[in-house]
């Protein structure tokens, strides 16, 4: 019944606790890289540069600065609504998996959530690489059907009457949720506001932190 791989498929998804599998995956990845480098098809320094980009440069703080600006600059917010690709590009956030951006604004009446049921489409230039759960079957299967139950697992409860719009990223269009500006944040500047904006709130699976509470 080999419970190791099967029953622990979930832990496996997270990859924290399976040293044996980790070793096997390490070996597989290393073997493939070795072959490709020996063939001159891959430059390991290019691999390093790609990793550096997504580990340290491109991440959800980009999106947070977009959101904070939308909260503080009505003209920018309008631009985001009209042409998010251009508005976001104007802040320097461009490229792979962000070529066609749409910003969706939460309101007291409507909450927005983003998913890719078919794979792992995600707006890299503003949010970086997707978290594990975003790519895993539980989120992909349930977000489009029972988003309130999913939100509960993130500790988020919406008022009963709030409508939920779930955007399934089936093409190359990528969505950024603009959460509502939290109460009590009057007078905060864009930089302070950006610190309130969590990654999950820009996917629609969380809310921004409240002022005075660590994000």
């Amino acid at each position, binding site marked *: 019944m080999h419970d190791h791989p099967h029953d622990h498929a979930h832990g496996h998804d997270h990859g924290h606790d399976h040293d044996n599998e980790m070793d096997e995956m390490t070996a597989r990845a290393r073997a493939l890289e070795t072959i490709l480098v020996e063939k001159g098809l891959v430059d390991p320094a290019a691999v390093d540069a790609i990793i550096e980009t997504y*580990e340290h440069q491109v991440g959800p703080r980009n999106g947070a600065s977009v959101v904070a600006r939308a909260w503080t600059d009505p003209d920018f917010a309008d631009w985001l609504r009209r042409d998010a690709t251009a508005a976001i590009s104007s802040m320097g956030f461009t490229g792979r998996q962000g070529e066609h951006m749409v910003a969706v604004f939460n309101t007291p009446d409507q909450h927005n959530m983003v998913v890719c*049921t078919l794979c792992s489409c995600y707006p890299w230039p503003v949010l970086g690489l997707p978290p594990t759960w975003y790519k895993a*079957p539980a989120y992909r299967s349930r977000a489009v059907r029972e988003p309130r139950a999913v939100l509960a697992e993130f500790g988020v409860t919406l008022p*009963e009457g709030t409508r939920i719009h779930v955007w399934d990223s089936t093409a190359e269009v990528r969505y950024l949720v603009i959460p509502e500006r939290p109460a009590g944040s009057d007078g905060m500047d864009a930089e302070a506001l950006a610190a309130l904006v969590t990654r999950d709130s820009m996917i629609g699976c969380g809310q921004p932190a409240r002022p005075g509470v660590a994000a």
Partner: protein
Amino acid sequence: MNGPQDLGGRHGFGAVVPEPETDRFHAAWEKRVLGLTLACGPLAHWNIDSSRHARESLPPAIYYNASYYEIWLRALTNLLERAGEIGADELAAGHALRPGLRPDRCLTAADAPGVLARGGPADRPGPAPAFAVGDRVRTRNHQPAGHTRLPGYARGRVGVVTAVHGAHVFPDHHAHSPEEDPKPLYTVQFDAGELYGADADPTLTVSIEAWEPYLDRSPA
């Protein structure tokens, strides 16, 4: 294809497990798989649609037991084998036994950031759209054996067009051919009741992007 990737509305996958925003990777090999996958793109043996198809073509027993980076590694290996760039003998040996086919296209470290920052837009000149915002459409019973981006849960359902995106590369064709075959792309919005029947969440609306060949006009 009605493959393991077609997850929307399926049951049995358990709870979502949130993780901290600061987690970027969970093991060093994940980084290498990310980097290798992106570094192999410029070899131009495949495109984004054929690489998605390679991932969804993994057997369900494997797909559902694998982390997403494992899915990437398996699909990348399969794509490289199919392209003739690597062989099972080399994978077994852990070393190259033959020269590569396209070392001239090898991505350099210097070029990598630019390639990532440019990305690859999918919009193209193409046919004028047949539908407009506000039109009622029914998705077709479109379930080819090959690649498609029409999810099963949204098949044969009536929705409303809420955005027209111009013509985009058509994945159903492009996954199996170098031809891009651009088709008008729409955002189509559905009430959850239309998607899931009686026990749907009445406050839920779901939208997908749908290419024109997925759609028929629906009477009001």
